[in-house]
Every structure is written in structure tokens, then in C-alpha cells.
């Protein structure tokens, strides 16, 4: 929907994921641009979450390359060099390039700065809302606490870092409207608030790419509208890109700049929301058509 589109940030090339004989994702290629909200849609079992798990390092893809750029666009010039070098990342002044398929899950967040949420919410239910947000800043705080040693001895540098971390957490609590419940257990929050907290927690890792797995699942229409607003604000204020899996079309069509449609692990369409809305293949596979139009659509698609 934005006028000037950003440069390519994430490049997914020939991604294939096999589980035994099952091909969950088959030769998928797409790109996500900087500052865009890219939606990944498709019927149940289309392989959307598998793609997410590959990008965030939870699965190691059977084949394919997942490249992420930070900073200057010139980084893409080094892509072949990095791939052939066998290393995970290439960091130069002004730009970084990361090959996500070579990283274990925690490094994807720590170094490549990709954060994610889960389809079934995964908070730390027995810890307070504030603690949840501090755990997300673990790596920075760990460094500030001198890998625990300085922290145990009570060095002031750690206290300062912790204050800053709490400040960042409080800022996010304000933005998702949970400040009043900061000291409550996360498991005590209502469902919608837990969804928002999970997004805030992911944002506390200071990502450049935020992957949201069905953030609107289980939300009522009003909460969905609030979610749209929150995501657009995050994109605008934090200058990050968002990758989104969603079934709720009111969310997808409203906020995404770019949609990729999957069916049985294969990409069947890729484009702007308006082009996707009119794409007959997508309509047949996913959005569905009214009974009287079936024959017409089938003719168009070539069935």
C-alpha cells in the first residue's frame, strides 16, 4: 500500500522441506521488502508454519537458501561469496548478510535479529508480564552483567543496563496497553492481552524482521482492528519488516503490502493484495467462490 517500496530484505530461494516422504514446502521462492508487511496465506496444511520454522531456525530446510540483509543494499553483492565461504554471516561496515538456514534457532534471533511469535501462544505463564519482557532482552543484559560475574558482585554497570531494559519494557507495555498489569503473572492475562504481550516480547529482542504466526487467531473483530493498528504502528515507528501468517482476511487485506499464497507447499500466487483478491487460482484454492461461479472459475483456471 505504501507508494515507494523498500529494497529486498529477505530472500527465500528454492526452499524445500521434506519430512520423510512428505514434501511440506516445495521449491518456494519469494522476497520480502524492507518496511513491508508480507503476508503468507494458504489453506490449512499448506506449509505456512513450516516456512516460518525454517526462517526462524527451528527447522533446518532440506534445500534452499534463506538470506537476510541488514543495512546497506550493497550487501547483496556479497551473497555468492558468503554462500561459497560456508560461513553463517558476513558483517562489514554498514551492512550485514545472514544465511538463516545455517543458523540454530537462538542465533537467528541473536545475530540475524529475526523475532517470532507462535500460533499457540508461548508466554512464560508463571512469570510476570515485566519478567517476560526482560527475558526477551537476555543477550544484552547477559553482556551487561559480565556473563553473571559482574552482576553477582553487584557492579553498577549492570544496574544501569537493567534500568534501561525495564524502561524499554515499560515503553512496550505502554504501546500494547498492558502497563497496569505489568506485575501480574502472564498466565493470568486474558487471551487478547496475551497475544499483544507476545508481540511486545518479540519486539523487545529489537528485531529487524518480525514473524507473526496467526496473530489474530481467536481475537474478536474489535481486537483484530486494534491489532492492525498496532502492527502498522510498529512498522512505522520501528522501521522493521513484518512477515505474517494469517487466516483473518480483514487483517491480511487491510495491512499487508505483499501477499504470498501457498497451497500444498507450492506457491500459487505472489503480489499485491488487490491482485491476490482477483486471482482465480487463489479464489479457487483458498478464498472459495459461490456455487454459481464454480463453473466459470474452473474454466478460467483451466480445470
Amino acid at each position, binding site marked *: 500500500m505504501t507508494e515507494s517500496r523498500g529494497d529486498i530484505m529477505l530472500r527465500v530461494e528454492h526452499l524445500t522441506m521434506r519430512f520423510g516422504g512428505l514434501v511440506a514446502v516445495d521449491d518456494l521462492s519469494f522476497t520480502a521488502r524492507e518496511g513491508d508487511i508480507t503476508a503468507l496465506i494458504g489453506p490449512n496444511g499448506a506449509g505456512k508454519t513450516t516456512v516460518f520454522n525454517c526462517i526462524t531456525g527451528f527447522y533446518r530446510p532440506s534445500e534452499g537458501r534463506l538470506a537476510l540483509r541488514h543495512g546497506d543494499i550493497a550487501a547483496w553483492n556479497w551473497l555468492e561469496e558468503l554462500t561459497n565461504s560456508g560461513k553463517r554471516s558476513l558483517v562489514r561496515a554498514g551492512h550485514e548478510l545472514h544465511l538463516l538456514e545455517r543458523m540454530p534457532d*537462538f542465533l537467528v534471533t541473536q545475530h540475524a535479529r529475526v523475532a517470532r511469535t507462535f500460533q499457540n501462544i508461548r508466554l512464560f*505463564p508463571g512469570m*510476570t508480564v515485566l*519478567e517476560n519482557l526482560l527475558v526477551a532482552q*537476555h543477550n544484552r543484559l*547477559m553482556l551487561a552483567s559480565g556473563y553473571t560475574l559482574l552482576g553477582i558482585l553487584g557492579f553498577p554497570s549492570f544496574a544501569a543496563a537493567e534500568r534501561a531494559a525495564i524502561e524499554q519494557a515499560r515503553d512496550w507495555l505502554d504501546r500494547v496497553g498492558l502497563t497496569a498489569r505489568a506485575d501480574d503473572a502472564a498466565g493470568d492475562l486474558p487471551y487478547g492481552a496475551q497475544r499483544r504481550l507476545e508481540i511486545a516480547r518479540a519486539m523487545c*529482542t529489537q528485531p529487524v524482521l518480525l514473524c507473526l504466526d496467526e496473530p489474530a487467531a481467536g481475537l474478536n473483530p474489535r481486537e483484530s482492528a486494534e491489532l492492525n493498528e498496532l502492527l502498522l504502528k510498529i512498522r512505522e515507528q520501528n522501521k522493521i519488516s513484518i512477515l505474517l501468517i494469517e487466516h483473518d482476511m480483514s487483517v491480511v487485506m487491510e495491512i499487508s503490502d505483499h501477499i504470498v499464497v501457498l497451497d500444498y507447499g507450492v506457491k500459487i500466487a505472489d503480489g499485491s493484495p488487490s491482485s491476490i483478491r482477483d486471482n482465480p487460482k487463489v479464489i479457487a484454492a483458498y478464498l472459495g467462490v459461490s456455487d454459481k461461479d464454480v463453473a466459470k472459475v474452473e474454466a478460467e483456471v483451466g480445470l
Partner: protein
Amino acid sequence: MADDAPASRVDTVRALKDAATIALLAFGLFLPLVGFQTTTNVRNDLILTTRWPLLFAVVAVAGFGRLAYSLVVEPWLGQRTFRTPGPTPAWRLQVSKWFVPFAIGFVVAYPAIVVAASGFRGAVKWIDNFGIQILIYVMLGWGLNIVVGLAGLLDLGYVAFYAVGAYSYALLAKTFGFSFWILLPLAGTLASFWGILLGFPVLRLRGDYLAIVTLAFGEIIRIVLINWVDLTNGYAGITGIPRPTFFGIPFNADDDGFAAVFGLEFSPIYRTIFLYYLILALALLTAFVTIRLRRLPVGRAWEALREDEIACRSLGINTTNTKLTAFAMGAMFAGFAGSFFAARQGFISPDSFTFLESATILSIVVLGGMGSQIGVAIAAIVMIGGTEIMRELDFLKLIFGATFDPTQYRMLLFGLAMVLIMIWRPRGLIATRDPSVVLKERKVIGADLVKEGHG
């Protein structure tokens, strides 16, 4: 009232029916077990005798017991569940506020109190068997609490690290003559090294599988200690382990001994009191470090790991390192406790490091409430102090006869206490969680939300 009457009458009828059923069941069950007895007569023939009074006593106990349960206990339990918890009364807040300073004050003053109460001669037993013995288990409980309570990793072989600490001190002190103060940190380091070594293979395991591998690890260490006779002297153990000195001054009757240097009359109690304060300091160090760690990122990562490992990984936490630090930390404190144990006993053998010890320490942590320092300390006092006090109950011999030995029943009571606490408080004595950081108001987190960990 008119409506209540029929209902309660029906209840009585039902209770009577239940009681009759139970009595009948007991009769059927105990008729062959209790009612008949085979004995031999003078001609060495097997004859059948009957014990009707005993049988009817057993049946009556079962029947009336059930009747009492349905008429008294059940209504009381039913009422209890409907009672809603009100606000915490003011006195309880006061108690919880002053409990810790009071408890620390008491344990610091404990030797003086005991000496005042029972004199030099009697005090040794009370300080050694109760004070030192309980504090060792408090320390071990707090150490294991890091692994089980905070990180949620079920470790059934914790005593292995205790053994590593004890043997490290014993062997190094005997062979090289290093002092206790050098070997204490060294024993901790060696134990945590073994903790990391155990950590590596079990990283991928969870729950029951993790428990079994840690159990096996504990047994491996013990069996190595038994069989590596050249080094450890096997079953016979190591004797004559050097005792700790008071910063170089030994506790003996010599002219340069502690008593002579300080111009006191020689008595073994000085060493006992010194050891008491030593283990107290070590236990308090464990508590202090654990409390500190909980508020550091590593402690929060442990708790997050207990809550949800996958979410941890999605937040960039290296779960491998986090688990290893938990194992290493827990093992280090066990190593400290082990070297203290060897120094206090002067003799160690593999018998001191059986699975039963691991089970005792783990049950202290579970009964106390996983993650709770105060709960673990109370559980250690009850469990270890309780078994020690059994030795003191000589008056029971007057009731049950001279052959009665109360210590024989300590495992029975141990088990009974465990069953009762698990019924009464399924998550341990203190099951609530105290947040590690607060924005505005400190709120205690209920046990139902806190996870137990999955491995």
C-alpha cells in the same frame, strides 16, 4: 431445616451402607490373611488356628473408620473447598516479614542457646547431629533447587556431585596436604566440571528420560568409587582425612591447639561449633548467590526455561549454555557441601553417597516447594531433624517394649509425611513464586500458573 433433614438422613443411610461394604470387603480380605494362621504343634504337624477376635477388631476398625470418614471428614472437606480465600490477615504479613531475620538470628545464636541449655558435654550432640547435619541438607537442598526448582531439570543423581566434592577434598588433602580453604573452591570447581560433563549428554533429554540418565550418572560415580580401589580404597573408604583448622590453628589438645592458643580448657565442642558456623556460612552463601542469580539474566533464563523452552529459543537464549550453567551451579554447591562433609567426618566411603541420599535431597526440594528457599529450609529441618529426633525418643521403649527401635520406623514416617504433604499441598510447602523484578507493586504468583518444568 425441614429440607435439610431428609438429605442428611439419606447421607447417614449411605454412610452406613458404605461402612458395611467396606467392613464386608475387609472381612473377605483379612479372613485368610488374619483370621487363619498356620502353626506347628509339638509333633511338628501343621495345624490351622483361628484368630477371630483379631479379625473382628480389624474389620471393625475398617468399618467404623469408613463411617467416621463419611460422616465427619467428608462434610468437612466439602465445606473447605467452598471457602473462598480472603485477604491475607495483617498478622500473617507481619510474620512473613520478620520470619527470615528471626530465623537467621536463631541459627546464628543456636550453639550458644544449646550450650546454655545443656552444658558443654550435652551440646556437642545437639550442634553436630541436629545443627550441622540439618544445615548440610539445607545447603544441598538449596543447591539442587537451582537445577530442579529454577531450571526445571529433574536430577536424580545429585549426590554424585556431593561425592565428587567429598573425594576431591579427601584425596587432595591426604595426598598433597593442601588446606581446607584451598580445597573448598577446588572441590566446587571439580564438581561443577562434572556437572557440565553430565549436562552435555542429557541436554536433549526431557522429563522421565532426563531423570533416568541422571540417576544412572549418580550410580556410575558411586560404582567407580567402589571399584577404583587403588585411588579410593573401595568399600573401605578413606580414613584419617585432615580436619579443617581455625585459619591454621588446629583443634587439638596440643600446646599450639585452638584451646591452648586462646587460653581455654580443651573441649571437642570448639571444633563442632567452628564446623557449625562454617556450614552455616556456606549455606547462607548458597542462599545469597541463588537469590542474586534469580535477579540476574541467567536466573530469569533458568526460570523461563522451566516455563517454556521453545519460547526461550525464539528469544535468542542459548538453551544449551543455560542448562549447563544450571547443572554447573547446582553441582558446585554440592561440591562445597561434599568437601565440608569429608572434613567434618574425617572418614568417607561410597556408602554415604547412595541413591537414597539423592532421593532425600530431591524430596526435600519437592516437599519444600520447588524454587522456594524458605520452603526447602523448612522441609530439610522437618525431614532430617525428624529422623534425628527419632533416635531421641527412648521413652517409646517403655510403651512398646525394650526391643522397639524408633529409628527403624523413620522411613515409614518419611514416606507418610511425604504422602500427607502431597495431599495437603501438592506443589510443596511454599508453592507460590516471588517475582524477580517489580515495576510498581509486588504480587505473589499462584502455584497454578508456575510450571514444573518438563525435563
